[in-house]
């Protein structure tokens, strides 16, 4: 289980209606079901992973978040979770807007491209960074829109959504991000976790 799952779970109220976008093999869905008794649905693009979810008794729709969120009416869910996939979309702006249309709130996690290891990797090797959380080569990575924690905060002002809570994950420890420590968290945070609203 990914270390951020516990953090995501802490951000969600009990018995809430939740959509997990890009739900993968359903590990987070199961975790939320057990811990928060949520009414949870998932969307997943991989047929194989949809099968895994079905085998776990989870309600999952095979689909692409970029096109298939359309089918949900406004405010269908209290929370919509998008875990480490924003960077893989052709148009992250549309995806964020869609998340906040179908959900009252969204929880978005992003692998931080501003992390010091990433920066050093590029600085000293002069090649596209490859780290534990970003294991692909530039030519086969699904991550076409990488951003940093700072970028995401900036993005919230540009496309106009509120960041209700922002957290950084450093060595499996979670800490708040605020204006005064943003530069520090942007350098050391491996993952940014944001609870956002319209």
């Amino acid at each position, binding site marked *: 289980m990914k270390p951020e799952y516990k953090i995501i779970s802490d951000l969600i109220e009990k018995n809430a209606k939740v959509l997990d976008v890009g739900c993968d093999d359903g590990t987070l869905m199961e975790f939320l079901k057990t811990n928060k008794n949520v009414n949870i*649905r998932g969307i997943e693009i991989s*047929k194989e992973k*949809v*099968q895994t979810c*079905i*085998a*776990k*008794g*989870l*309600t*999952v*729709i*095979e*689909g692409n978040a970029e096109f298939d969120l359309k*089918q*949900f*009416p406004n405010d*269908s869910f209290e929370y919509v979770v998008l875990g480490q996939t924003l960077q893989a979309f052709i148009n992250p702006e549309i995806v964020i807007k869609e998340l906040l249309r179908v959900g009252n709130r969204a929880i978005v996690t992003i692998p931080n491209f501003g992390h010091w290891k990433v920066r050093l990797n590029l600085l000293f090797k002069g090649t596209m960074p490859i780290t534990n959380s970003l294991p692909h080569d530039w030519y086969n990575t699904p991550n076409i829109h990488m951003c940093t924690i700072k970028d995401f905060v900036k993005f919230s002002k540009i496309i106009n959504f509120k960041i209700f809570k922002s957290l950084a994950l450093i060595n499996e420890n979670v800490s708040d991000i605020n204006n005064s420590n943003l530069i520090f968290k942007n350098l050391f945070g491996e993952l940014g976790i944001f609870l956002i609203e319209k």
Partner: protein
Amino acid sequence: MSIKQNIKTLIVEKPLKLDCGQTINNFPLAYETYGSLNHEKDNAILVFHALTGDQFVTGINPVTKKDGWWSYAVGSGKSIDTDKYFVICANVIGGCMGSFGPSHENPKTKKIYGTDFPVITINDMVNAQINLLDFFGIKKLFSIVGGSMGGMQVLQFISNYPNKTKTAIPIACTSSHSAQNIAFNELGRQAIAADHNWSDGNYNLKNIVPDKGLAVARMAAHITYLSKKGLQEKFGRKLQERDDLKFGFDADFQIESYLRYQGSVFVDRFDANSYLYITRAMDYFDLVKQFNGNLSDAFKNTKAKFFIISFTSDWLYPTQENKDIVIALNAVGANVGFVEIESDKGHDSFLLNIPNFLKALKNFLDKSYAEKLS
């Protein structure tokens, strides 16, 4: 007929008002069951058959002596596990395996109905089958399952009886028959009508059958059940028991021979007038129109858990038409899962041994049953 001895029949006494306006009562509904109903009566699954199916879902069909049409999916330890669930399937009204249909005698005229039989709809079919629940004392089914026209019945059933099932699995189907679907059905009907033996539907009186027309109808339909890739891989341009083309119109190619065979075996087991009536019922199916253009309204009163399955190479009821059902369900916040199964076997995939399909079906049913849904 000795065949009839193997057919279980419920005589439905309650009047049923058909969509065409006529009312029928005391009509036979032929059915078969597999497995056993548990003490709580909460393990029943109603399976709906497709156009040319019947109530003999699995095991050896006592009439045709062949495997039941869904033997891959239904049986001991299979996806629809008869060790666990009580499976019920009825022959649709309009059919020819014992249920009230055009080959039955009209009590008023003492003659076989033929085309005097009332035109029936998918709605009429499910309204006839709901009587099976009372008959078995089942308050709520665990699931309703069906592919193709069976899937249409699943959708119609849940719209008519939103609280009569805990789960629903429409497979490879549509909420509204498309122009292309109607066109292929019309081709089949015209093939039957063009057979001189059909005699405006009165062939029974003359003791003949429009076998040529019915065989052509089946051949045309059979092509729509397969994919281009599947056909190409199985037959290609392979020749039938010959080394070279014969410069004639015999079946030179294996695909020709295969289709002719499919046509010929079909006429032995199916009634031409039933084929007309059932294809008509499919063509008239338009759940979107029944709910004034908003399919979601068909599902707004149900709490049932849905699982929708389509197949990549199915061009008769393509994935998008199945997804439209998912979209309509999501619009009313229904509990719906969806998967598209990779297969090059076309629409027929739901009847075949497609491991990913059978696995998904089994997992959905078994996990849902364990959940003890209300």
